[in-house]
């Protein structure tokens, strides 16, 4: 059993009331996390990890996967890596499970079903040109290579982009999967296409995937690369694409088309639920004959390839849809437009937001209808990564990163990506972007955490041994914007108690509801029990720590483990005959010899009896093994 909790003001609280319990007054605030995803073990990495994508498992928000143009760290060519996290994005690892011919992938996007654990991925297979693979995995956190469902090349396919939803059909879960792609195998230059399956989870390859051609009009030989979809649980699924109307590159003229299917893509003619009133043809032309610079065109050091489209449907009202696209409105600009429809895509608002010289728009809508809008704007030779929230007229604006363009210089294109990504789970937003990895706090106004070795004083990234600088590069950054209930930093002292510091005992008393006690682990090491460090050559360092709480009453109290910033950490909780045991292994950066590290036990007494003292016996065991193996091997005292 695992539980995570955040305390946004924990550092403040700990600073002033380091071992004083506190009460909660239930103020809701927004907590932002920005994390450099390159693992510590890959501190030597200098690749250009651009064009990121993210999938959060709605069934278990702790589990996330990310992707970027990242090569297999061993140079092996048969598999490419994805990034994985099992602690809600706090730490990331690289897992080489994507089939490849050159140790990397071309374009890649990812999505979980909304129930279950199946991950779907669309890629251009590394080393194979414009060869699209659609893949699935029931455990992207394991070692098995992803299963191939669709393998298509022919005349070539570009930018497979995945969306997925889980429906209950006859009592069983079905993953409906949509992969927008620009398929040059389509007849007559009507290349905008969607591969779709109504039951992709269990069927053997090709898992029910069929091709829907969603471009009904004549084109200038093809549509542009980006075809994006968004799906609502009521069956409405929308697609957006650039119809290339006329004029050669780099000054192509395009219409922005939105198409809709009202039954998960199973209409007799898929995506034919919206007809344009002007020509009576399926697919609404939201805007027409726009100049879309591409092939070749640049914004700063990043290329432009007509891939800047995004679409998001309201999760509980499928009539509400937001879109974003890019075009040129003046002589040299590259402008993002965001609009909204409240009638299932039939009519569209004027621009709700117009952003000049920006790229990589990504839209999502959370469970209460708040839109999350991620984009990267070039300002004064720097990339500002913005995340905005709102609905119509008022939009908050948060800068996640402000990093230099062209430092480091590009090693290939795209420099930061032809797209980035954001998604909502519940009220919270989770996203990913790529940016220069210069470790400078000024570049990350919301704060940042690096897993890889970095020196924020000299502004250099460091090698694995932390003995020398390594070259700057483009890295993927995860971010989370979450609504949290903040802890009152003990404003009402009468509602606080001083925790007991006796040997091998924790005593807490709730004076007012709700009450929360924060118990620093290093103090436990000083007072409650001995905390041995790394002793001997052939042991894990840091080891696993198993903290037993005997006589713990789980009906009255919940206990969790957080780090010094109040971030969740990866830990296990198991029941014992006499109580519970919390097991975890500190990460190397936070480990402190003989003190374990700056971690905090947090006790929440939601059902605790007021003014009653609860006493838990506590003890610590140190082990090379996780708890289950520790017990199986008879190492438990």
């Amino acid at each position, binding site marked *: 059993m695992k539980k995570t909790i955040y305390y946004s003001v924990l550092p403040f609280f700990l600073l002033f009331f380091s071992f004083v319990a506190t009460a909660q007054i239930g103020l809701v605030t927004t907590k932002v996390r920005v994390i450099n995803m390159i*693992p510590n*073990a*890959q501190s030597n990495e200098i690749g250009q990890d*651009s*064009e990121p994508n993210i999938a959060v498992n709605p069934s278990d928000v702790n589990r996330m996967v990310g992707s970027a*143009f990242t090569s*297999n*760290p*061993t*140079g*092996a060519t048969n*598999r490419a890596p994805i990034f994985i996290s*099992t602690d809600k994005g706090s*730490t990331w*690892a*690289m*897992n*080489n499970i994507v089939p490849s011919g*050159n140790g*990397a992938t*071309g374009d890649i996007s990812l999505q979980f079903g909304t129930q279950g654990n199946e991950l779907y991925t669309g890629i*251009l297979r590394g080393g*194979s*040109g*414009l*060869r699209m693979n659609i893949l699935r995995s029931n455990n992207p956190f394991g*070692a098995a290579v992803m299963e191939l469902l669709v393998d298509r*090349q022919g*005349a*070539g396919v*570009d930018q497979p982009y995945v969306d997925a939803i889980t429906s209950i059909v006859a009592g069983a879960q079905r993953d409906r999967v949509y992969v927008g792609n*620009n398929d*040059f195998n389509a007849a007559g230059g009507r*290349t905008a296409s969607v591969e779709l399956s109504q039951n992709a989870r269990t069927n053997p390859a090709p898992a029910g995937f069929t091709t829907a051609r969603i471009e009904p009009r004549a084109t200038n*030989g*093809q549509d542009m*690369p980006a075809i994006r979809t968004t799906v609502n649980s009521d069956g409405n699924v929308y697609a957006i694409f650039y119809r290339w109307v006329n004029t050669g590159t780099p000054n192509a003229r395009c219409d922005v088309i939105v198409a809709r299917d009202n039954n998960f893509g199973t209409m007799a003619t898929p995506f034919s639920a919206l007809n344009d009133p002007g020509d009576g043809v399926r697919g609404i032309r939201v805007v027409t004959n726009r100049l879309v610079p*591409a*092939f070749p065109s640049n914004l700063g050091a990043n290329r432009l*390839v007509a*891939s800047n489209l995004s679409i998001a449907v309201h999760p509980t009202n499928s009539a509400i849809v937001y879109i974003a696209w890019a075009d040129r409105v003046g002589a040299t600009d590259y402008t993002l437009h965001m609009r909204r429809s409240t009638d299932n895509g039939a009519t569209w608002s004027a621009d709700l937001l117009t952003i000049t010289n920006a790229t990589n728009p990504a839209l999502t809508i959370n469970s209460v209808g708040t839109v999350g809008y991620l984009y990267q704007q070039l300002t004064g030779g720097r990339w500002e990564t913005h995340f905005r929230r709102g609905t119509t007229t008022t939009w908050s604006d948060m800068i996640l990163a402000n990093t230099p363009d062209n430092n480091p210089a*590009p090693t*290939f*294109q*795209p420099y930061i990506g*032809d797209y980035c990504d954001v998604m909502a789970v519940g009220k919270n937003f989770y996203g990913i972007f790529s940016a220069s990895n210069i470790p400078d706090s000024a570049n990350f106004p919301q704060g940042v955490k690096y*897993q890889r070795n970095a020196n924020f004083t000299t502004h250099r990234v460091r*090698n694995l041994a932390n003995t020398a600088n390594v070259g700057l590069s483009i890295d993927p950054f995860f971010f989370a914007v979450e609504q949290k209930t903040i802890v009152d930093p003990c404003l009402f002292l009468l509602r606080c108690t001083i925790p007991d510091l006796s040997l091998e005992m924790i005593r807490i008393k709730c004076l007012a509801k709700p009450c929360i006690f924060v118990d620093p682990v290093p103090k436990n090491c000083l007072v409650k029990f001995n905390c041995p460090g790394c002793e001997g050559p*052939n042991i*894990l360092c840091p080891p*696993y720590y198993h903290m037993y709480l005997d006589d713990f009453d789980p009906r009255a109290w919940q206990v969790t483990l957080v780090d010094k910033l109040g971030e969740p950490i*990866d830990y296990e909780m198991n029941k014992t005959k006499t109580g519970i045991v919390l097991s975890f*292994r500190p*990460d*190397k950066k936070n480990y402190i010899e003989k003190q374990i590290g700056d971690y905090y036990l947090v006790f929440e007494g939601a059902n605790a009896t007021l003014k009653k003292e609860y006493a838990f016996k506590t003890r610590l065991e140190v082990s*090379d*093994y*996780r708890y289950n*193996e520790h017990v199986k*091997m008879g190492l438990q005292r």
Partner: protein
Amino acid sequence: MKKTCKGLAICIPFMLLFMSFDSQAQEQRESWISKSSLIFKAEVVLLQTSTINWSDPSTLGVVRLQEIFKGEQELSAFMNELVTVNFNDLKTVKKGQTILVYANMWIANDGIAVTEIAHEVIGDNKLTPDNYRSEIKESLQKADILDLKSRASKAELVVAGTILSVRKAPASKTFETEHNPEWILADIKIDESIKGGQAGGSTLTIAFPGSQDFMWYRSPRFKEGDKAILFLSRENFGYQDVKHFTITTAEQVSDIRELDKVRQALK
């Protein structure tokens, strides 16, 4: 082979049997090598646990890295450190054993983990502390030859040549994507034909990508005067299938200084 025999009639069958086993073991090792990007010697330190906090450690073991035979760049930072191995069968290893691990990278986070293709225990009949280096070195050399043969088998032509000139290919594309290879054409003088019917002294035109797109930026590039051994084939890359032989991966090019080795391998 440190064996003693007292009579030829008895010895020869045993010797033949041992030679057959040795040959099979060599072949198996070469197969493992061809599938592995990492080969290293390590001591088994812990079983059923990991340096990467993996939730299911039932197939995992922790080893101390002692010597690297393949994957120096990726593993050198972990020399004498603990590394996690995802074993095919954990029952085949014991704490304290010294093993040769054939593996690929699996996980990198606070530590690293590799997935084994196979392992051999140093100290059993086949490998001893005295012979493992020479055995693995010999196998690596044979695997290198096999690799050359495999690359050659995929190629229609294998030639040693000199680049005479390079130029942009005329526009022939039918579709526009960010992954356009932007083919560059190179005229090559064939200095020696190793596979295929191309006559020495003749010229041939090949194509290689000039694009800086992620899909192509690692492709070999050529300039006038370059000499190389080229493994040439005609491949389908989708919409822009080029009519010429193409070079798109590093695997299709060998240094001209390896000419003797290539000749020997492909004899």
